[in-house]
């Protein structure tokens, strides 16, 4: 955290460059708009996951719940309840916040490794619900043309997505560079000491899950607009794991890292995933390579944060049994 204004300016420039690249690509290479929009949405999702994972220090094994919840509730509100468009979006946001708060209440009853397992279990529960409940389309999902009326074709939808995602990124950046971030970092580094200072760490963690869940929910809404419907694959644990892999690949202790990971993994998914049925193989290879060669992610290599960050993961899951003495 040296010379803050410079940092802000640097990240602002990066953001503008990313927007420019996306616009240029969509105008000069025809037919890429759909892919680019998907990449953007996944960037939002991955950064949302990273709020919980990289910044919050919780093992986020189930963020597909939020993505799926956002998209399903948006589509259901539109198709079954017949609520006007803008109201549906707002209502979905509020509902996602409440939902992620409830999830946070449940998940935070346990810590570290168990939290990850519980989160994944919840994800599986929700996935099964999506598979069996008639209202949710019984494993097929609900198709509904849900793009906004001014952005029906791919390119204008890309621009719409770009605007929304940019707003979300600015919000996330503000949140992650506010004094609140210092508390978050503190929790990541040494939770017990923060409780000594008088901070209700559980409440902060809850808040983090709500923030993370809300942004993942927004990405879910966008995703359902992109694909015209909510499908049960959104709830799959594969999506959650991919979100984690994106964070890891790009660098989970950096702001832009997850975006890079999202771009790479989505590209691979679309291009190579379309060619073979062995898409899990690719994900496995990526995971293993990252673990061996870029433990801090592509961007996190040699980052000043990395050393302290490594320490924090050690704390996250204590390797010995020293916890017993506490």
């Amino acid at each position, binding site marked *: 955290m040296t010379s803050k204004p410079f940092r802000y300016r640097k990240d602002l420039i990066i953001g503008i460059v990313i927007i420019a690249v996306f616009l240029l690509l969509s105008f000069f290479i025809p037919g890429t708009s759909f892919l680019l929009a998907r990449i953007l949405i996944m960037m939002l999702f991955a950064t949302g996951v990273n709020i919980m994972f990289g910044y919050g220090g919780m093992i986020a094994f189930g963020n597909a719940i939020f993505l799926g919840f956002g998209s399903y509730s948006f589509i259901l509100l539109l198709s079954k309840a017949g609520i006007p468009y803008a109201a549906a979006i707002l209502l979905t946001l509020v509902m996602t916040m409440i939902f992620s708060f409830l999830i946070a209440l449940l998940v935070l009853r346990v810590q570290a490794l168990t939290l990850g397992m519980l989160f*994944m*279990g919840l994800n599986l529960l929700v996935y*099964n619900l999506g598979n*069996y409940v008639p209202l949710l389309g019984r494993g097929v999902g609900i198709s509904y043309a849900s793009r906004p009326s001014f952005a029906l074709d791919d390119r204008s939808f890309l621009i719409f997505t770009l605007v929304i995602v940019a707003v979300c990124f600015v919000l996330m950046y503000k949140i992650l560079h506010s004094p609140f971030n210092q508390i978050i970092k503190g929790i990541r580094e040494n939770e017990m000491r923060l409780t000594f200072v008088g901070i209700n760490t559980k409440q902060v963690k809850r808040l983090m899950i709500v923030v993370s869940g809300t942004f993942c929910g927004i990405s879910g809404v966008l995703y359902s607009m992109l694909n015209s419907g909510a499908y049960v694959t959104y709830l799959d644990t594969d999506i959650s794991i991919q979100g984690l892999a994106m964070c890891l690949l790009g660098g989970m202790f950096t702001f832009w890292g997850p975006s890079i990971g999202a771009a790479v993994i989505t590209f691979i998914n679309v291009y190579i995933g379309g060619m073979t049925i062995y898409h899990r*193989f690719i994900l496995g290879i990526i995971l293993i390579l990252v673990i061996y060669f870029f433990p801090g992610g592509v961007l996190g290599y040699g980052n000043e944060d990395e050393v302290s960050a490594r320490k924090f993961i050690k704390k996250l899951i*204590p390797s010995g049994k020293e916890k017993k003495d506490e």
Partner: protein
Amino acid sequence: MSIYLYQFLTGLSSGLLYFLTAAGMAIIVSGLNVINFGQGAFCMFGTLLCYSVYEATGSFFLGVAAAVVVAGVLGGYVTEAMLRPIYKRPPLFQLLLTMGVGYLLQDFFLFAWGNRMISASVPEILNFRVNLLGLPFPFYYIFLIIISLIICAVMLFVFKKTKIGMIFRAIITNRDMVDCMGINVKKMNSLMFIVGISLTALAGALNLPITGTQTAAESPVLFTAMAVLIIGGIGEIKGAFIGALIVGMCTSFGAMFFSQYYSLIPSLLMVLVLLIKPEGLCGKKTNAG
């Protein structure tokens, strides 16, 4: 009345199969402090190996033995060659590594065995029915119950009475101290991993005549085992036993009453237990992490 007994025995046998998987996982979790996310893939490996050997030689028991041995060797290779270099790294990376290995294995199965449903009939020797309260009951389930209980007893014996079991328990309690006593903890880790994987592969192999497996789908075993572990308390073999029995019974009776939603039961139970007792039924409060 007899239908309930029937369901009870089915639940008991499937619960004990869950126990074999979950116990394997519990050994790995408590010993290495890593949740083995590849466990489901190894379980499927057991099923597939048993199937192939059974097809080739006609002997089911040879298939089971082959599954246990080969999966154990593979598990040993994974720990020695892949997990061991990153023991110094944070446990999260080890966990993700097992996940990556699981993904690789899964797609390898898809490649090697093709996208299909793998199952086999019950071997001739065990393929008869016993009369229980006027209802014919397949003997294979009883065989499963007996085998699992024997393994459980052997495991308890090894854990409580032998020297290697003592070392295992010592590692679970305080790894660094065991290292200081001059025992090769890394080797022991590999051994624990092998035992855990073998147990899982055994469960998979025994499951072949019952439900078989679908090579394309991710194994549901991993999640059931995870639910069992959370219900019982992580890293507790006793907890795994109780949790597995509860899950097995509930799934079996659940399949009878709400046949449509019965695959939700393990996760629902898990959430319920966490609401009541977050550290699991047998978990100790301090060890909840």
